């Protein structure tokens, strides 16, 4: 059993936190404490060994991937992670080939699939879909992205990228999350994840794509320093992280709204004159036009390295959820 002890200065009591994730659902980044996040990042780094050599840690276990929205990285990295740990995968990646087209709802789908697999990764356009399914599934549900709100495993890998690529720690960083903050679930999840750390957070977006008010309200209540702006240039030289997101065309209820903001922001090479030497530029991908291709070969670009960290994070999550703390490295 893994425990993490912290000392509460007010009354000198050691608080014991159970870090056994066996059977746990992964639904929202808000469900995870700082201690739990740090533990997941630690295990992810330990998984590097198995990334290279493979493992039989999850031999005999089956992961079902149910993707009702397109995915390249999330789905393939979960599949890769599971194979690297000796497990197997069954997939529903084309809803058109399933009983969904016959009118079957998600509830009946999960009630069925939980009999085929030891864990389920679910991506669905409806917000709250993973949360509802976690209430009825007896196998762990991992949220692979739900609507415009949640993408917890992306947030984990984003934290791991920052930790590993800048000085080994997240506290003290100055971070700008840019782009479509209204409809983008990755920026939202990352903001909540970062609320557990002592950071300086900036939201940079066109005014029509500002971060949802309930998120900024929550962050203020959590004591996070958040500045909102439409222009990154006044602060770019102070930043440690620029996290860029794509305008989520597919989520705009009004096509005219999308047309009015399309192409309104882009990170280009000339913008990076005078930035910090250890600045990193991140993006959850897919990238469309918001980062110039000339930046790809610079030392700042970490968005493809993020995809590697995505495999480590998913290996860590699958190991912890399916094996608990019986992980021997």
């Amino acid at each position: 059993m893994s425990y993490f002890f912290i000392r509460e200065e007010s009354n000198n009591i050691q608080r014991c936190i159970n870090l056994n994730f066996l059977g746990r659902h992964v639904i929202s980044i808000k469900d995870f404490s700082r201690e739990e996040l740090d533990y997941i990042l630690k295990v992810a780094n330990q998984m590097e060994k198995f990334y290279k050599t493979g493992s039989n840690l999850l031999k005999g276990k089956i992961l079902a991937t149910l993707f009702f929205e397109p995915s390249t990285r999330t789905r393939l990295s979960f599949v890769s992670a599971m194979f690297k740990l000796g497990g197997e995968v069954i997939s529903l990646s084309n809803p058109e080939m399933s009983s969904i087209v016959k009118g079957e709802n998600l509830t009946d789908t999960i009630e069925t699939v939980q009999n085929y697999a030891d864990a389920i990764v679910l991506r669905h356009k409806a917000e709250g879909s993973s949360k509802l399914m976690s209430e009825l599934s007896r196998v762990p549900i991992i949220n692979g992205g739900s609507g415009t709100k949640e993408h917890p495993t992306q947030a984990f890998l984003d934290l791991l990228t920052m930790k590993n690529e800048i000085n080994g720690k997240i506290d003290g960083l100055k971070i700008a999350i840019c782009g479509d903050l209204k409809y983008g679930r990755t920026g939202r999840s990352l903001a909540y994840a970062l609320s557990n750390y002592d950071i300086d957070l900036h939201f940079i977006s066109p005014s029509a794509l500002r971060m949802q008010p309930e998120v900024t309200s929550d962050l203020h209540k959590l004591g996070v320093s958040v500045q909102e702006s439409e222009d990154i240039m006044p602060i770019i030289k102070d930043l440690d992280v620029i996290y860029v997101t794509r305008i989520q065309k597919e989520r705009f209820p009004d096509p005219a709204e999308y047309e009015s903001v399309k192409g309104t922001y882009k990170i280009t090479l000339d913008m990076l004159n005078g930035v910090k030497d250890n600045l990193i530029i991140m993006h959850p991908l897919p990238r469309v036009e918001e980062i110039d291709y000339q930046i790809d070969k610079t030392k700042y670009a970490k968005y493809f390295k993020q995809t590697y960290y995505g495999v480590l994070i998913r290996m860590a999550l699958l190991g912890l959820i399916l094996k608990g703390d019986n992980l021997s490295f």
Partner: protein
Amino acid sequence: MEDKSKSEIDTEKELRVRKIKNGTVIDHISPGNALNVLKIVGITGKEGMIISIAMNVPSKKSGTKDVVKIENKELAPEEINRIALISPNATINIIRDYEVIQKNKVSLEEKIRGVIKCLNPNCITNGNEPVKSFFRIEQTNPISIRCEYCDRIMDYDDITQQF
């Protein structure tokens, strides 16, 4: 006809709606919300009991108020507490044989299931899944509630527009 004292007669003259023998009196409803209160407790008028409504009547406490009297029905606690969503200062009087046998203020429950819809069209509770809406109270005054599934926050206007 029963003999009454002069003060009782004078009091009755002042009442726009006469006293009921048995049932529920919902008093101090926010002005203009009487019909919404009936909707939120699921009363349509087709149930058969006599319902009296007074709207925008003078109130010493709040200037104006609405009052609803439902004869021969005592509202259950879960019905009563729904009223708090749209009229947090309402009071409930249970009447038996013309006497107030129970008087309570409505109170907001911490979590509300199935009473109102989430306004987010993309919320899982608005699809074809067997699930009721589920909200927790964010703030009591002014009221705001948050959907447990999609995190959408709804305020007083969002709640009342559903009725």
